[in-house]
């Protein structure tokens, strides 16, 4: 097509080659571009009319993804809260009942920690705000539950010490025991020959049979007395005291800490006594009580031996 174009010039009556000046060429190009631009503009307007902006769509899509993730986050928060509730329920309904403590009420558990700067209040998006509120609540509840569990653990340790201190076993093993005199109260004294209260129980056993501390405590007195012979007095705390009399000898000293099952001395016939036996007394809040109530008669020998062993182990580990 690279042919030269001509126009007929009626003035000169000649065909003249068409010369396109740069001016004309520029004009033509501008024309072309102008029309294209108009076309493009029309297209844009129509596109805007029919479809949302690209950025808008992208943002909306991102928004949807994020919101789904947030819903998952909310569910996770709910799950945590639910598991925490189970823990709280256990705490209130089981442990606090057994440890004899008042259950914490719900308002106590949900009470916010005062004065804490709340990030949530400045946020206007409900999805975020509620999540923060929920998370805040969970944190507070965790704090309170953590304190509560600590308190329960302390209380339990205290009670464990109390239970361990209580006289709860027989002071002489069934292996050595020949006879248990269950007379408690007024009776005729075999040596003095008149009626006087018998404030304990007598365990007849061969001389030299070991005598065990019946609960954890501190030795108050370990000495020889006229009537009780070699005698040990143990202070258990929590209102309990025990006394062991007529020993051949004792192997603890005043002020020594003893464990349940620890050997404190050996059966003998010292003091006002007619035969080798252990005289065992329990005082609760200063009043003599019948020791028969303070050892498990249904405990079999094997179980008893096991307890004694535990007591002796405890001693070695203490030294």
């Amino acid at each position: 097509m690279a042919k030269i174009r001509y126009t007929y010039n009626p003035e000169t009556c000649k065909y003249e080659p068409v010369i396109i000046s740069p001016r004309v060429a520029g004009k033509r190009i501008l024309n072309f571009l102008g029309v294209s631009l108009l076309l493009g503009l029309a297209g844009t307007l129509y596109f805007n009319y029919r479809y949302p902006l690209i950025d808008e769509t992208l943002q909306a899509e991102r928004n949807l993804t994020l919101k789904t993730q947030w819903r998952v986050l909310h569910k996770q928060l709910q799950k945590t809260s639910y598991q925490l509730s189970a823990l709280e329920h256990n705490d209130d309904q089981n442990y606090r009942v057994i440890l004899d403590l008042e259950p914490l009420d719900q308002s106590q558990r949900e009470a916010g920690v005062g004065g804490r700067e709340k990030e949530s209040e400045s946020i206007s998006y409900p999805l975020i705000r509620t999540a923060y509120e929920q998370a805040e609540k969970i944190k507070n509840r965790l704090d309170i539950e953590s304190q509560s569990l600590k308190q329960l653990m302390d209380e339990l340790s205290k009670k464990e010490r109390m239970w361990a201190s209580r006289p709860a076993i027989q002071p002489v093993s069934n292996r050595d025991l020949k006879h248990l005199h269950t007379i408690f109260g007024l009776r005729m004294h075999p040596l003095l020959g008149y009626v006087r209260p018998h404030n304990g129980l007598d365990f007849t056993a061969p001389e030299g049979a070991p005598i065990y501390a019946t609960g954890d405590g501190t030795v108050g007195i370990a000495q020889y007395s006229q009537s009780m012979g070699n005698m040990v007095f143990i202070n258990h705390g929590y209102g309990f005291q025990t006394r062991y009399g007529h020993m051949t000898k004792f192997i603890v000293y005043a002020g020594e800490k003893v464990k349940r099952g620890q050997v404190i001395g050996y059966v003998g016939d010292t003091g006002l006594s007619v035969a080798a036996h252990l005289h065992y007394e329990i005082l609760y809040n200063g009043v003599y009580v019948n020791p028969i109530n303070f050892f498990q008669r249904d405990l079999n020998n094997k179980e008893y031996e096991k307890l004694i062993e535990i007591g002796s182990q405890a001693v070695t580990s203490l030294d």
Partner: protein
Amino acid sequence: MAGTKYHYNPKTLRYERVKISIFNVLITMIAYLAFGFVFFVGLVLLQNLIMETPIEKKLRAENKALDQHQVILTAQLNESNQRLAELKEQDLALYQKLFETNLPPESDPVYPDREELLIADPQDFDESIDQLSHRFTELNTAARSYNQTFRYEASIHKNDLGHVMALPTLAPVQPFEVEKLVSGYGIRINPFHKGNYHHDGVDIASPRGTPVVAAGKGRVVLTRRSDLVAGYGNYVEIDHGFGYITRYSHLEDIVVRQGQSIKKGEVLGSVGSSGGSIAPHLHYEVIKNGVSLNPVRFIMEGIATDRYEALVAISKKQNQSLD
């Protein structure tokens, strides 16, 4: 520019008019359109770059906030979950120390995930329906066989209604939850000396002052009060006839007299920790002709089958008793 255009044809030696072909027109139009499209794309992009509609602005701000806070909250959630796990461990330690057992407590309650079914795909849905219908058939068969047993038991009722009615079937603490039964009948650990011994009843942990009720109708044959910190403490015995006696011990208070007739469910005292007890609870025994029986075999009134199974499971745990 006006005027017709001509080409010089060297073959004919003449000037010929230039014809405008369709091809030329098409090319021109395509050129316009192509450039128009380029402008369109350019304009749209430019518009995106420069302009920000209110909707976009809002979305952008929201997305930014969502993004930012998601990171913070996820961190917080992880921290909370970690602390929760620690607390669970402490809870387990407490439980094991409290009951002198190495066993874990009842399995974690399952978090009810109700939405799971909704997001399940159709195949899953079909499968769960299949499972359900299968389970239904199973249950139906089981129900039929139970029905026969019930008919058999109903015939016993007619013959010996009085005997059955006298049985102490009600849980002695109302309302009763199976979790309250913290130690069962049989060999248990004594809390004081930690040795094994035979626990002749069940321990139902309840707050101090919770009413204790008669497990069946009968007559109060014994009420005893004791300040001694050993043994049963304050306790009540009820004779239900047919050799059955129930014993309710470690009571805080007794509100019935010896010799009094008592109806099933009537209050006879309140839960306490009197006698040799480490915690407020009711030690409940069922005795037939002088022999203690497992009370769990009797406690059944108002307890659903699955709960009863849970009760039996709990009562079999060889843990520490409370007295």
